[in-house]
């Protein structure tokens, strides 16, 4: 039987991870397209995108806090103009998770985009397709397996994000207390090992389900285009 804490934390984790991944997807697509195309500044952009991967998540959370906290100019403006408060709010947890898992999405997308034969764009152009139509009818469907793989990896990673959420959005049950934070709290409570154990089992099950689902879908998509896992034709 799942208790209130487990249900709340699980649902919240799923919500935070889903919003984090879906919300950052358009930007990831944009950045990956830019990186795949190359050109000046690619190296710097690439480094910036990967920064959250090498920084301690606590640092990411802290940086978010000093830029988007209610006391900070940008955070104050958001609260004032859009009544959007990120700190101590689940949207803040989603933002923190999005920043930390952003590199996973960009990486997978970039690989998928780079694997597309540039000749296909010429063929599409010769058939009268505008840049937007080329993106919609050629780039997007061919990058879909990569997009899916990246999104699933990012989703699984977002489910497990701890440091950035803890620092930026804090550990508020029912609001920002995702599974890892609930596990942490349970372990801090005397006699909370049983609860922690249940939460850990849940976390493992969720992560595994996500990875299997994503890999299966990506395989199906790749098989359709004749791409094999090892070698992209």
């Amino acid at each position, binding site marked *: 039987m799942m208790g209130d804490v487990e249900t709340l934390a699980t649902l919240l984790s799923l919500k935070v991870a889903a919003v984090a991944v879906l919300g950052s997807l358009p930007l990831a697509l944009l950045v990956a397209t830019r990186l795949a195309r190359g050109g000046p500044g690619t190296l710097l952009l690439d480094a910036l995108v990967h920064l959250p991967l090498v920084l301690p998540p606590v640092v990411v959370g802290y940086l978010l806090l000093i830029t988007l906290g209610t006391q900070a100019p940008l955070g104050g403006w958001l609260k004032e103009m859009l009544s959007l408060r990120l700190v101590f709010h689940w949207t803040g947890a989603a933002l923190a998770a999005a920043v930390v898992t952003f590199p996973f999405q960009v990486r997978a997308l970039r690989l998928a985009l780079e694997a597309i*034969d540039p*000749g*296909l764009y*010429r*063929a*599409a*152009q*010769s*058939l*009268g*397709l*505008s840049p937007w139509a080329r993106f919609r*009818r*050629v780039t997007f*469907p*061919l990058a879909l397996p990569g997009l899916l793989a990246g999104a699933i990896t990012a989703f699984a990673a977002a489910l497990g994000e701890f440091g950035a959420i803890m620092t930026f959005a804090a550990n508020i049950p029912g609001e920002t207390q995702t599974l890892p934070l609930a596990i942490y709290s349970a372990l801090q409570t005397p006699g909370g090992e049983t609860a922690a154990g249940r939460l850990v089992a849940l976390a493992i099950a969720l992560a595994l389900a996500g990875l299997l689902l994503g890999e299966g879908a990506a395989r199906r998509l790749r098989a*359709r*285009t*004749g*791409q094999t896992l090892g070698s992209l*034709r």
Partner: protein
Amino acid sequence: MLRFSLTLKKGAFALRADAREPCQRLALMGPSGVGKSTLLAALAGFERQAQGTVHLGDRILTGGKQGLAPEARQLGMVFQRPLLFPHLTAEDNLRFARPAAPPPVSFEEVVARLDLAPVLPRRAHQLSGGEAQRVALGRALLAAPAWLLLDEPFANLDPARREAALALIDEVVERQGLTLVLATHRLEEAVSLCDHLLPLIEENGVSAGSAQPLAQALGGARAPTLVSGTLQEAGGTLEFCYGGQTLRVKAAPFLRAEDRAGPAAALIDPQDVRALAAGAPAPLGCPRFEGQRLSADRLRHGEDVFTLPAPLPPGEGPVAFTLLGATVLPPRRRDAVA
């Protein structure tokens, strides 16, 4: 009608090509790597560094302040590689372009003429080279193009399908008054489909060429010799004279059924003529010529290709020729070269 004058510099590669008189059916010929595909890409607007002008009818595609983007040029393009969309079936590839105007041939006709019915449900990676090439050709025709830019479109096709594809293109170009630019290294294809020829030749690091009427272009020193004869009966033999020797060509394999009666002409490439020593395929007793003339070493088994030393030196003994190939022209195409 196409008229253009283009120059292009890309690293160490330089290209200069023009067609000053408007031509409707233009063949680009030249050795591999000379820049035929690059010229096609420049005509299509894919080469941003290309400078000059491209006029199609009264429209300016390149030149002036800025050129039209490739997608606005109403192309019907077949690239060196089929470039089919791998996430789509052959049928979806054929229907990929959604032109505003109806295409010059219907989907059903393309499928029937190019024998594509069996491959329609397959995806690109499940097609053979020839099948993919036919789908690519069909896709270009169904885009309702104003002109066709074809890069070796028959390279992977077997003879029967090559003939069918060639006839379809010929018909569409004729019926719709389309402009055709065909890059090929087969003279036979150029002569069958085109009335102008642009030979691209690399000299001093620059690939250059100008379009000329076909007959004029074929008049050069290394060009094939035009000979003609009359077919007495369907599948009969054409007789040609070359250097005092009589060459016999069995014309039937080169002709379509409806062209197998009446007068025919043929183009013979010197490289298709092989010499045999008199009466013997054996290397022994081969006549020995010096210099650029025939040399016995190159006549081993009577099979080696050589360039005809014309005229043959007198008194060097009889030499028999066999002809390995000839471009036999049906009556309808004789005017193009006569």
